[in-house]
């Protein structure tokens, strides 16, 4: 895990510095004098040798100090934490919507295999996979915000203004964000349930005279959930990374927009910090999923 993160840190550090684009010129604009630009570069510490800059950065990062933002002149760690108050609830909401919609739908499709219910569900999930998230977002805004006026077109007033209002501003973006993963999870659930329903012990349970409902809920689902939950866990990380586009459509002050803005203005400490942070989160989630898998499936535990 540490090796992965070290590799990621090295990669992002090199990539942002190899990219053309000088943060000092970006800050000062096209009417700046070369002396002012040089002075600003020096004050940013950008004219020191690269290995020195890297060691200084990674040394601080291990202790939780990710440097200072060039643009905002505030600690990067603080910026990330403040943006998390938007991205984390957004990701969790999208994940919740995804799970509570996809799993029942997938189970339903599996039980209606090769009948109308199955085909309708699969068409729906196909749409979810095909529609790009930002377009879905724009469509949701056009309908629910511009046309109906039920929701704001974007923005986030903060948790201080009340939990209800805050959740409301995250609802449409969460739906758009979760759409693709919802479709994928629905299909995964359907396949997992179908496979389990073909197993010998299910046939035995049916032969014993158990109702289809009992077969499903007491025997099949518990085993089907193992692969489903592990996929859902991995998708959680992907949701977090995928928020970058939707936060722009809904102008939410989240982590994704912070990263996008930082890349455009070459705010190197912020880009490095955000990438390292998101990579860490995904690594941790994947490790947790591995553990979960072992807990759920006794066969793995005893290997």
């Amino acid at each position: 895990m540490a090796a992965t993160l070290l590799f990621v840190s090295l990669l992002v550090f090199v990539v942002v510095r190899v990219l053309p684009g000088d943060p000092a010129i970006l800050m000062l604009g096209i009417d700046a004098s070369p002396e002012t630009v040089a002075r600003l570069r020096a004050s940013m510490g950008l004219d020191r040798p690269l290995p020195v800059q890297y060691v200084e950065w990674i040394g601080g990062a291990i202790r939780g100090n990710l440097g200072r933002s060039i643009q905002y002149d505030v600690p990067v760690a603080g910026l990330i934490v403040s943006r998390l108050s938007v991205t984390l609830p957004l990701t969790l909401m999208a994940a919740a919507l995804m799970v509570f919609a996809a799993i029942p739908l997938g189970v339903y499709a599996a039980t209606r295999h090769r009948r109308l219910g199955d085909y309708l569900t699969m068409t729906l999930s196909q749409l979810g996979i095909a529609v790009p998230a930002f377009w879905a977002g724009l469509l949701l805004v056009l309908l629910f915000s511009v046309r109906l006026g039920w929701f704001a077109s974007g923005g986030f007033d903060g948790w201080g203004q009340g939990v209800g209002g805050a959740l409301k501003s995250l609802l449409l973006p969460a739906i758009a964000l979760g759409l693709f993963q919802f479709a994928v999870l629905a299909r995964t659930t359907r396949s997992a349930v179908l496979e389990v329903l073909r197993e010998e012990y299910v046939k035995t349970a049916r032969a014993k005279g158990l109702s289809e409902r009992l077969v499903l809920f007491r025997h099949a689902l518990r085993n089907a959930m193992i692969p489903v939950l592990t996929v859902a866990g991995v998708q959680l990380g992907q949701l977090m990374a995928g928020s970058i586009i939707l936060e722009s459509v809904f102008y939410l002050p989240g982590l994704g927009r912070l990263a996008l803005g930082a890349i455009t203005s070459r705010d190197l400490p912020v880009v490095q910090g955000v990438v390292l942070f998101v990579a860490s989160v995904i690594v941790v989630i994947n490790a947790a999923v591995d553990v979960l898998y072992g807990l759920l499936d006794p066969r793995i535990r005893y290997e």
Partner: protein
Amino acid sequence: MTMLRALALALLALMTAAGPAAAQGALAVQVPAEPPGLDLTASPASAIAAVVHYNVQECLVKVDKNGKLVPWLAERWYTTDSKNYTFFLKKGVRFHNGREMKAADVKFVLERAANPETKHPFQKRYEIIRDIIIKDDYTVSVTLKEVNANFLLEMARQGSVIYPREAVDTLKSAPLGTGPFTVADWVRGDRIVLAKNKDYHVKGLPHLDKVTFRFIPDPNSALAALKSGDIDVSAFGLGPENVVDLKRDPRFQVILGDTTNDVILAMNNSKKPYSDKRVRLAVTHAINKEEVLKGAMFGLGRILGSNVDPLNPYFVDMSKAVPYDPAKARKLLAEAGYPNGFDAVLRVSPQYYYTVRTGEVLVSQLAKVGIKVKIEQIEWGQWLSQVWKEANYDLTIIGHAEPWDIVNYANPGYYFRWDNKEFQALYRESEQTVDDKKRREQFARLQKMMADEAPVVWLYMHPRLVVAKKGVTGIWKDLPISSLDLTEVAWQK
């Protein structure tokens, strides 16, 4: 089905959660970028000027909505030679912390700007100040090292805002000034809120109680926010393509005006074939600027013939000086040794999408005279590095928004790499000319020189585009200076 019912109830509860009600006297403005700090003495970013300049902080002199220099914090000034200035400050002007503005504050601000340690973005422009003497609390005299015709204008620009010397540390997050609004709140990433300054030194102003700047970078999101009523004004970031259908919407007004943003096709004068004046003139003759305006800007904007824009008092209309004449273009190219034209790469940055659209129109026009142009879209940071800093380009398109930026053409190191000694000498002379009539004549000659030598092709002035709800009054039609002056903005009763 209790779970479904619960879900439906929850949804209903969420939908009825009330949002903040629009208060009378409140205005929500969209800006495309969050300012990197609010310190006008640390960064030249126009995103800062849009929020702070003339709203929160003010200058001794002001550029008004017609582009005229008018007295502001200095109620009058006195000079005979444009080298020694005496400013008489308005009495009873209070900073937002309650303290009265005095001459000592002016001296502090100007000396701090000139000090290299401060890293003021326009520090060089203050080096011309030799001495600042406080005559009394409301009188300050400034002596320059040499005559400078631009000095008063410099005192009106965003780098010269007057702030209390005890508030230097808060300039970045909550700047204090003398302006009609104070900074009430800054929710990072989302919005900045300004509140009315009840002690403003101009009685009866401002009209608004509260202004909220929302950062909405995507023009489609800005449009949606406008149409759903989440914002009242979109001041920057909408292009002519967005404005077309808003014009027909009875809820909105579209304000169309002039700016100081001249959009140019720059040619690399240090590189063949652009080092040859005949080639540069040929490129200019090959371009039909009317078609460019129609095709790239939906007909909005004004055609230019030199760098000086219509809002400048010395503007001379040079747009017909080098007219559209493809036959002449081909003749000039042949004379210069390119009878079959040549290949060129045009680099543009989609961050400023009008440059991409403009490029697409130009490609077909230039092809007709044999110049085969390939468009290369590069990211903004790359453009700054490769085109602006290293002059690694053939052709590029960009808008130069700064007023009075003719000085860039007198700089042989600027990315055009145009080195014309006669132009440089005449420009330097004009900087030291005190007599307005003589300066006007010099500027006329400078503009003719630019048209004759054609270091770049001046295409058009980018229009000022503001969309606001009907009922909002007082927004400037033109943009003679980088500011979103809200002093006189109000809701019609």
